[in-house]
């Protein structure tokens, strides 16, 4: 029992259809794929990046699975550790990234599709780069 400290650790057996209707597909996946195509067209034409918030869509688990299948898996996977992991993977369509932000307990706090050449979270911020330079210089001076 010691390690049964999270809701997900409690075994649940579901007979028949899940009682919450989560298996019903509401047709959201196709609509979102269409929106992705619009964003991708903008990226191609003007270089403008975009994002689609998946969390605020009324999607069932089945919808999400259908979307995942429609977009597929690409070449890149990355994990960013910022107060819990953020998992990023490129879908089968280059420039379309599936991003899952989790908190320290690994619960999803935000989930989005980002349509960009590189997801914003991956690039180092100007302020951080400057701070890094200062730290490196300080280190060199200490050693020198």
């Amino acid at each position, binding site marked *: 029992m010691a390690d049964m400290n999270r809701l997900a650790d409690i075994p649940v057996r579901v007979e028949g259809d899940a009682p919450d209707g989560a298996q019903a597909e509401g047709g959201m996946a196709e609509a979102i794929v269409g929106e992705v195509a619009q964003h991708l067209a903008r990226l191609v034409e003007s270089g403008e990046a975009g994002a689609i918030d998946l969390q605020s869509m009324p999607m069932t688990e089945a919808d999400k699975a259908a979307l995942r299948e429609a977009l597929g898996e690409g070449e890149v996977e990355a994990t960013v550790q910022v107060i819990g992991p953020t998992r990023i993977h490129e879908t089968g369509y280059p420039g379309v990234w599936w991003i899952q932000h989790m908190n320290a307990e690994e619960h999803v706090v935000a989930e989005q599709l980002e349509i960009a050449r590189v997801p*914003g979270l991956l690039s180092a911020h100007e302020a951080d780069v400057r701070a890094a330079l200062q730290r490196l210089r300080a280190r060199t001076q200490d050693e020198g």
Partner: protein
Amino acid sequence: MTEETLGEMMSRRGMSRRTFLKFCTAVASSMALPPSMAPVMAESLANARRRSVIWLSFQECTGCTESLTRSYSPTLEKLIFDFISLDYHHTLSAASGHAVEKAREEAMEANQGEYLLIVDGSIPVKDGGVYSTIAGMTNRQMLEETARHAKAIVAVGTCAAFGGIPKAKPNPTGAVSVEDIITDKPIVHVPGCPPIGEVITGTVSHYLTFNTLPELDDKRRPLAFFGDTIHDRCYRRPFYDQGKFAESFDDEGARKGWCLYKLGCKAPIAHNACATVKWNQGTSFPIQSGHGCFACSEPDFWDQGGFYKPLSAGVWGSAEGIAAAAAAGVAVGAGAAAVSRARQKKLAEGESEDTFKGGV
């Protein structure tokens, strides 16, 4: 207020700007802001300075504070406590007695006209306000004194926003809401019993980030969270449109996850974010757990004729509820609305009496 920016503060602790971006992405998502806003918010927040916040608790159950603190530790959203200087809060304060009252007075003095006042709980005004006092002051006195130099007030929870359960009939303490007493300050309502933790965080973050209060509805609730009804965003909504309803809590419809409207679900008139933000780290919300919504974010929800009576049969149902449900139906298909209106009429005529055996 310190001179250091939040960006500098976090950097000193070894945290990068990615922390801000991730935090703001989560906030933007919960506020249904365009995802493209997140980087802008992150920049603005990193350049902001810590703000003094005074939190007053009156006639309340501490559920609002629990909602904010319990669901988070030690996660991303808890960063909000790094971004503010929480100078006074009964439950969370380490100090007590005169020392903590002094902290409130000092924060008011040092941040005159700049601090954010958060209030949870209603204010009893009957019999000179004797039903709830803190450090020898009635709640009303403390609210008036603290509100005087506040920049804005966030009334957290249905009690502070609308009077809530203390105000429920017969309202023995003469409980009133914050806006019944304070009329000359910007006030935001974040109702709910309790409100969703992310909604409290989102509203405060909006203030920290944009230095303004979010856009509000006619009941002073942030539109970002309260603009839609639970019904608008409910994953069971397709069943409503198809006319598939659970008739009791243990019938085939209930097991299949059909719409709970006939079992008293008040989602069509409940403005809140439960259907999208959800509860317990996004695990579920009442309807997903098989129980109707009882519209705890609406004024006087406790006195609306029973949690298990359909809207059409209750005090709420006759006008606003049916209109809301029917109007939403039109968006999906005029046929659905006509059907549902006929069904609601039938329900109103008493078809629903035995839906919850054992009753309330």
